[in-house]
């Protein structure tokens, strides 16, 4: 095969058996790769009603056909599983160098199932010294309890200094529902509690080393197209690259200007302390250098050091989502404090978005007199940086009140009788765009298969950032079409193994329709699969719809496609979006119609037939 290796590694941790499976070429094409292949196997093999933290759940690491190829930003992988935070699926995306090395093992996807009796790590070595890949399940009691940097260093010494490590920290071991899987020390497959699934399997780490290249269908043409894209990016960078100079930390100024920067647990979208948490501050005070993922011409990552601040440490980040959640949502106006909290999340293996927004929710509960100080063990007012930093650590270890935070904001707010103060969709915390001033994002958060997530179909590209074209964030006009389209597009980009930053701007048409013309070319040159733009979009729709079927069978209905009361009934109090709420009821029926779902949000038989799907496949 081209683009794909066509091979899947399955590791049964209960029986300690390892098997190699080949993927059917038609399935490979129909489901693209990455996230698409993962949901296909998850749907076929896992009962949607399963407890996410039981041995019956399965955990997928999946690269795409463009991962490890010359495609610019072809350096991503996805972690898919049934998620403990939401009960829906998780599709957590990460970059760095690990995904490329993973693809070089000669496998497109790893499946981990069962539960090891004691802590283990898996070492997949395809360095070319043997006949083929060497896969070992090794004991890891000596790593259990160790934070991410120490775990990574130890594993590199034990395996191969050139290997790459994905692992969990103490949070994943303790089944914290906000736990991430970290790779290359600082990159996170962050969302939905994927780290807890790994912890529940007693799987501390997956270490990879490989030298297996990817066969390309049209290598010369592929390289030429990649060169053309890189030339275009380089020309833009030469004119002044905001992402390289400031990272995504440039965004708080923008979202604050249009009044959608999450502030004080989304009570408002305007933050008076924004000046303290901008990219300018990060670059001038703490940036060591931009840190690109493998082969990336953009380099939005930040290598930083807190020297000269009241905190100590060095690491990577923060990026915008972290600044919005651990910063403005918690009322923090000190970039050093946000960066320190970010370092701790990375070291202990926590999702910065859900951790920040859960602490922000606790702050609102506390300030409203709902959450007693005795329960928290300290005062908890908005803006208290030391409290945020302490609570990050307590959450990871489930220490004291951290045990409550570890369940996420919905379960915490529900415990105190006010679930409406949890800013979540499907129990997953909102990312950094208040949807009252970015209406398409409201429809996205409500309908996304993973709960609230910008990565599920980030229409902020158009509503906020003007990529590839600017559209009005305050209207609902055409938003159902855009959200359906962006969900399908982002599904394709995830499944292909690309980063969305480059893909929307350089691989899609700069028209109102945002068609993935160049992305289709790139996939065809890599795989030889002969996609048309239409058939590729249909494949995205197929993957998205199969994910939805999994949710339906796990019990999700239209009632779950909703938003917190604050977004639907409490108008934004100030700023450019003042007076606005999300008119979800006006957008949802049209969205369902465009998707071919009935009024309860269930895909119709006709639509399934068009997509070649069968709801009776699989278990459950």
């Amino acid at each position: 095969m081209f683009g794909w290796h066509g091979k899947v590694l399955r590791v049964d941790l209960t029986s300690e058996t390892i098997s190699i499976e080949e993927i059917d070429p038609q399935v490979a094409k129909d489901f693209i790769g990455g996230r698409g292949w993962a949901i296909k196997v998850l749907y076929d093999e896992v009962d949607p009603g399963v407890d996410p933290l039981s041995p019956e759940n399965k955990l997928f690491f999946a690269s795409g056909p463009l991962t490890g190829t010359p495609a610019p930003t072809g350096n991503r992988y996805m972690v898919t599983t049934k998620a403990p935070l939401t009960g829906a699926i998780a599709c957590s995306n990460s970059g760095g160098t690990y995904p490329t090395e993973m693809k070089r093992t000669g496998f497109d996807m790893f499946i981990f199932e069962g539960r090891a009796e004691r802590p283990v790590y898996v070492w997949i070595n395809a360095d070319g010294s043997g006949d083929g890949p060497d896969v070992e399940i090794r004991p890891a009691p000596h790593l259990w309890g160790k934070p991410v940097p120490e775990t990574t260093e130890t594993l590199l010494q034990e395996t191969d200094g050139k290997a790459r490590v994905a692992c969990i920290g103490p949070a994943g071991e303790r089944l914290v529902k906000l736990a991430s899987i970290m790779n290359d020390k600082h990159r996170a497959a962050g969302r939905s509690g994927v780290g807890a699934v790994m912890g529940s399997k007693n799987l501390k780490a997956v270490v990879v080393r490989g030298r297996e290249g990817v066969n390309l269908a049209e290598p010369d043409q592929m390289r030429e197209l990649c060169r053309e894209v890189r030339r275009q990016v380089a020309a833009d960078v030469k004119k002044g690259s905001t992402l390289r100079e400031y990272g995504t930390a440039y965004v708080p100024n923008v979202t604050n200007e249009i009044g959608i920067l999450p502030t004080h647990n989304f009570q408002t979208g305007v933050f008076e302390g924004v000046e303290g948490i901008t990219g300018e501050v990060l670059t001038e005070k703490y940036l060591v250098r931009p840190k690109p993922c493998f082969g990336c011409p953009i380099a939005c990552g930040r290598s930083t050091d807190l020297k000269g601040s009241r905190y100590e440490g060095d690491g990577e980040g923060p990026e915008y989502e972290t600044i919005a959640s651990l910063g403005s949502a918690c009322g923090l106006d000190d970039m050093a404090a946000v960066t320190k909290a970010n370092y701790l999340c990375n070291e202990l293996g926590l999702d910065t978005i859900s951790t920040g927004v859960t602490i922000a929710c606790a702050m609102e509960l506390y300030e409203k007199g709902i959450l007693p100080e005795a329960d928290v063990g300290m005062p908890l007012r908005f803006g208290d940086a030391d409290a945020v930093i302490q609570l990050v650590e307590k959450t990871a270890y489930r220490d004291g009140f951290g045990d409550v935070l570890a369940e996420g904001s919905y379960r915490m707010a529900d415990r105190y009788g006010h679930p409406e103060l949890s800013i979540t969709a499907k129990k997953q915390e909102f990312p950094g765009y208040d949807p009252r001033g970015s209406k398409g994002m409201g429809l996205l958060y409500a309908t996304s298969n993973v709960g609230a997530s910008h990565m599920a179909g980030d229409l902020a590209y158009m509503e906020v950032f003007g990529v590839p074209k600017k559209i009005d964030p305050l209207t609902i006009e055409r938003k159902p079409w855009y959200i359906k389209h962006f969900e399908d597009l982002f599904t394709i980009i995830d499944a292909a193994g690309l980063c969305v930053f480059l893909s929307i701007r350089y691989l899609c048409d700069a028209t109102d329709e945002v068609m993935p013309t160049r992305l289709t070319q790139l996939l065809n040159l890599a795989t030889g699969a002969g996609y048309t733009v239409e058939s590729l979009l249909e494949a995205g729709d197929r993957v998205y719809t199969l994910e939805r079927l999994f949710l339906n069978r796990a019990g999700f209905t239209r009632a779950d496609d909703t938003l917190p009361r604050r977004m639907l009934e409490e108008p934004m109090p100030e700023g450019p979006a003042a007076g606005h709420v999300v008119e979800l009821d006006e957008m949802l029926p049209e969205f369902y119609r465009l998707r071919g779902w009935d009024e309860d949000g269930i895909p119709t038989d006709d639509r399934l037939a068009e997509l070649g799907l069968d709801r009776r496949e699989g278990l459950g």
Partner: protein
Amino acid sequence: MHIVREAAPVRVELKLFATYRRYLPPHTAGNACHVTVPAGTPVVDLLAELGVPSQRGVSVVLINGHDASPDRVVEDGDVVAVFPALAGG
């Protein structure tokens, strides 16, 4: 006989984010300055004066936090914010 009354000039706050800070007058602290222009000036002219790119697809131009068309005339007290159109968080 016509009396032509010249309207008073208007003063607007100009905020330039990220790499566009370089278009601010030298020694400007932070990312904002005040600019005084003749009444009736469209925002596109105001930005051209300072060399700030304003073409759609290249920049996002906001007035008081809302999308602004290039020929929108600035008014006294407006806040004009401009940043490069590019991928975000």
